[in-house]
């Protein structure tokens, strides 16, 4: 197709995007690594002091950072579980022969389109004022109180909102997986006398392994990097009890003005995200059933 003399076209077609991409992603990535070895408060006139690895060493004794790591892990674990469970159940329901399956699918997917920021504000009202007002009226104050003021329940509230947002999205991935299973395989299982459960766990699920890989990958990386919902629903509160990784970095840089130290956290954040996702893809890839 392209010959030697077509070099000009090659450059014309690729250079604009490569230029923009380099200035927006590549250069900041490398200067970011540079910043992480300096101590700087972000004001252009103030000096940047080279501190070497000190920022990275400091991370391990930073209580607020370490507890944000624990919140993020707990949140991610619970959210992955809940999102995938609900998403899978939704997918199984809307792939039956029910008449209302398309309407149900449309409704269940809708929350995903409303952005995380707006969702957080909606639920802030529900978990805050709505819950406490319902609790006062029906007297069930052990369940209906302001969840956002309790450090443990505020984290659960975040899990619920993340689930509400993502379950419909994950449902779409599982639907694709279920529809990819050949009819005759299911029929063969029925002929062999397999009941609903056996068909589900022994036939359908193993053949859906690629969908599980994608769904786990998507939920893991989305939950781990959560920011918008965190920002609008709890703002990290109460007492930083729901401050996730991404928000901790944001606060360190833009609220506390520790630009160098915050950037060191951001680099560590990148390493963790990259390592976890690559590891997870490599193990789930191995377990996929090969269809011949």
């Amino acid at each position: 197709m392209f010959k030697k003399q077509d070099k000009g076209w090659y450059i014309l077609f690729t250079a604009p995007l490569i230029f923009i991409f380099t200035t927006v992603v590549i250069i900041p990535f490398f200067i970011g690594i540079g910043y992480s070895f300096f101590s700087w408060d972000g004001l252009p006139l103030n000096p940047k002091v080279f501190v070497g690895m000190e920022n990275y060493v400091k991370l391990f004794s930073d209580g607020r950072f370490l507890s944000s790591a624990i919140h993020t892990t707990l949140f991610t674990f619970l959210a992955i579980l809940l999102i995938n469970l609900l998403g899978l159940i939704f997918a199984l329901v809307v792939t039956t022969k029910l008449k209302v399956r398309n309407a149900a699918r449309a409704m269940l997917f809708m929350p995903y389109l409303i952005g995380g920021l707006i969702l957080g504000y909606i639920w802030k009202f529900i978990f805050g004022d709505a819950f406490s007002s319902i609790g006062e009226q029906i007297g069930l104050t052990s369940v209906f109180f302001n969840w956002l003021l309790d450090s443990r329940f505020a984290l659960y509230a975040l899990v619920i909102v993340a689930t509400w947002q993502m379950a419909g999205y994950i449902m779409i991935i599982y639907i694709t997986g279920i529809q990819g299973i050949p009819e005759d395989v299911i029929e063969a299982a029925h002929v062999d006398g397999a009941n609903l459960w056996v068909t589900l766990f022994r036939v359908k699920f193993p053949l859906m392994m690629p969908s599980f890989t994608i769904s786990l990958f998507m939920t893991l990386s989305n939950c781990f990097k959560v920011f918008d919902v965190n920002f609008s629903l709890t703002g990290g509160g109460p007492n930083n009890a729901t401050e996730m990784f991404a928000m901790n970095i944001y606060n360190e840089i833009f609220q506390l003005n520790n630009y160098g130290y915050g950037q060191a956290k951001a680099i560590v954040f990148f390493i963790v995200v990259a390592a976890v996702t690559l590891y997870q893809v490599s193990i789930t890839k191995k377990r996929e059933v090969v269809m011949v």
Partner: protein
Amino acid sequence: MKKAGKIAINIIVVALSLIYLFPVYIVIVNSFKNRAELYENILAFPSSVDFEYYATAMQKMSFPRAFGNSLIVTVISIAIIIVLASTTAWVLVRVNNKLSKIIFLVFVGTMLIPFQTLMMPLMQEMGWIRDHLRIPMLDSLGGLIYMNVGFGASMAVFLYHGFIKSVPVSLEEAATIDGCNKFTLFWRIVFPMLKPTTATVAILDVIWIWNDYLLPSLVISSKAYRTIPLSTASFFGQFTIQWNMAMAGLTLTIIPVIIFYLSAQKYIIKGVAAGAVK
């Protein structure tokens, strides 16, 4: 008997799906209530439909302006992403040499970098460009669009790359013999064939750019350039105690999303599925 059971299951599924959407219901009913009515019973219908809070919220959020800004940023960013990513991916597939492979790998590999790792140095760099090259990268819609294109590049190149690989090259060769240059060849012959991927890229990017908060919040500081998420956030900073007004504001922001969803539901679900599975 069996038929009745089937109808019952259908009704249950619809009912459960509706219950799943109850937060949207709560937002809408409470946007019409006054303060006393709101706290009396949060779940009840409003006693009268009064658009008073909508008018105030619309004015306080400068809603028409924010809507216009969001629309400009979303549409132009996506148009540029589609033009540049499709041409780039096409060349990277068709010129199958080492350089193309490396460029493609860099695009895909950087998808692992979280935005938080880039945000501070990116703002420093854009500030430097503004100060030294006098190009207004910060606090301008153009700067925001530029950065959206940079962040959307990887995903779009990746999706186009995957699709173009499955398109046979023979048609393009025939057109070349007929004397098409590369430019007309791409836009006349290749680009129309990429329609499914173009739809996927457009839909995924609408969902992302329309709702994006963090990047615009760092880039934009003037009130006049605020997008919908930015004006919602600043509105909430001022009115969290006046929930009825806040609910009216939230309803306003959800309406465009619902209209978009209803008008292109089939494509949206298809696009999201295609984008995720690849």
